[in-house]
């Protein structure tokens, strides 16, 4: 697809991962989706996974559009169903390196049930959630991650619902790797993704991600870098933190880090193949 004729040595290291002919992309200034994808596409090279094996499955929303900009096998699916779609891909062709990268509304509202069951089964997937606390693409409606008191176009008097702490949910449901970063912690995020790519089983990384236009503007963080500045000032890295104690509250520290690393838990595919070995007469 890439029609660039520049010698590879002169190319930017991520050039081969991009569908350059589709640029400029559709995301707003200050959005955290781009940096998150940047970290994700740098990680396979770090750990020696060939681009041909890398698959990106997304759902619906701003982040969902990412699969169309990257030069890998990309699947832009339906709202909430990226995880089961990815499970089908991975189980039918287990040599693929399958990542689901999608938004908080997609993964935890309409797709929440699929998320917890994929954790429970320990399907071999990396799931990255760009959590921007809001429905960005549809115009700033309430999400299950919107913080208490925040304003949204469907919560004009302020949100009255408690929000999900998604790393806690992933941990409780059995994910083998759980981390949280922000889209301004690029080097740490990239390292975390690389580490997760080398593990097997259901791995989850939450990336707190600014949405200046549809979240910041309504919540006293109107400038493109206001949310990034909130992240910068409030972040505290606490690897191994108890995920029940890291929920996000304005005015309190944002706890980042890799919280969970479980080893020795067989993946769904391994369990099924083991079962097959028992059933098949040799």
């Amino acid at each position, binding site marked *: *697809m890439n029609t660039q004729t520049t010698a590879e040595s002169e190319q930017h290291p991520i050039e081969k991962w991009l569908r350059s002919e*589709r640029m400029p992309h559709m995301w707003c200034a200050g959005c955290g989706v781009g940096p998150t994808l940047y970290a994700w596409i740098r990680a396979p090279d770090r750990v020696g996974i060939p*681009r041909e094996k890398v698959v990106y499955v997304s759902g619906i929303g701003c982040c969902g559009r990412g699969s169309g900009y990257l030069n890998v*096998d*990309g699947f832009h699916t*339906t709202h909430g169903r990226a995880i*089961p*779609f990815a499970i089908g891909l991975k189980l*039918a062709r287990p040599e693929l390196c399958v990542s689901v990268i999608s938004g908080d509304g997609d993964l935890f509202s309409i797709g929440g049930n699929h998320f917890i069951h994929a954790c429970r089964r320990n399907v071999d997937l990396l799931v990255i959630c760009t959590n921007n606390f809001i429905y960005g693409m549809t115009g700033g409606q309430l999400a299950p991650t919107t913080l208490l008191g925040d304003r949204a176009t469907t919560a004009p008097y302020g949100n009255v619902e408690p929000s999900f702490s998604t790393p806690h949910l992933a941990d409780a449901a059995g994910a083998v790797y759980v981390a949280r970063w922000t889209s301004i912690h690029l080097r740490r995020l990239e390292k975390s993704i690389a580490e997760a790519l080398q593990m097997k089983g259901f791995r989850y990384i939450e990336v707190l991600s600014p949405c200046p236009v549809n979240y910041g503007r309504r919540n006293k963080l109107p400038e493109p870098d206001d949310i990034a500045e909130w992240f910068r000032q409030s972040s505290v890295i606490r690897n191994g933190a108890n995920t029940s104690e890291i929920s996000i509250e304005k005015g309190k520290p944002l706890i980042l880090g890799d919280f969970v690393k479980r080893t020795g838990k067989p993946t769904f595919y391994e369990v099924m193949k083991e079962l097959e070995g028992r059933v098949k007469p040799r």
Partner: protein
Amino acid sequence: MREAVQTGRHFWYGNIAIAEGAIAAGCRFFAGYPITPASEIAEHVSRRFPEIGGMFVQFEDELASIAAILGASWAGAKSMTATSGPGFSLMQENIGLGIMMEVPTVIVNVQRGGPSTGLPTLTAQGDVMQTKWGSHGPYEIIALSPDSPQEAFNVTIRCFNLAEKYRVPVVLLTSETVGHSAGKVVVPPEDAIEIVERKKPKVPVGEYAPYKPDEDLIPPMACAGEGYAFTTTGLTHNEKGYPDTTAETQEKLIRRLNDKIRSHLGDIVDVTEENMEDADIAVVSYGQVSRPAKKAVEMARENGIKAGSIKLTTIWPFAEHIIHKWAKQVEYFIVPELNYGQIYLEVKREAAGEAKTLLIPRMGGELITPTEIYNEIERMSKR
């Protein structure tokens, strides 16, 4: 290791015949969720797949099940799910995605009485129109309907072949009656079963466009991990698979998605015409109702009434050219079906101006008897 194809003579329930037909067709990925009266298909597959290297997953719901079979198909597997009305309703979302992304896969709907939870354990044919347009947007789909366990086996294989050939989700629209009636099923030797595989790209990696069709309007299909680095989306897209949400692209894409089915009616449509040569009255039927319909026509012939039978094995696309042809000859079409008139309306549309169409409706629950159909044939013959 047991053979995948169980060549020989069997006494199988329709639902078992469907599971074995899928295996014989090369299906090795099944995702589903329990539901009456379809569960025996998943149960049988869960027992058989570990013997033959297939992947069976019982998902958390039907929304996930159909998403997973689309994903598995993109990884190169022949995939299937099986459900009944309530689950089929949930699956409409990703049936649309399968249509838009052009994914070969098979969805079995063992119909029960509806709407809603309806009659879980009793038969119906109420989902005919839902099968055609249950997901949003203008599209064409393929749906086949068997009348017996033997035909269920045969038709299941054909569903996979049509899905692969036309890059489209195919619905096997059966019912509780067929699923839960047992009968003789003859499975031919493996090499006597025709298997169709999807077209693969013949161009170099850099030149591949996932939605550039050949002359038959069907694009060759690369799979994930083959190095093509293609992208696909449920959004309106151009030949490269890139989102392109303009009126022009929508017009071109949706016309092709419909026309790739409509322009191959002769290949897809499968009907059985009996006693039609001199018929004045034609009974048009499908699924389990074809059996009492056939009997009723025999009764009519015994009584000197020129009746014939048109059995539709292909429900969608509709056999419009067949009905149109016979409409010039017959005076009446009689359509017995287990709903309040669905295929009846299609027949009536094609017969308009040429022949009259009569519906024998039943809301489901139990079959229509041969005598009930015969009585209508006799009544019409006296007009």
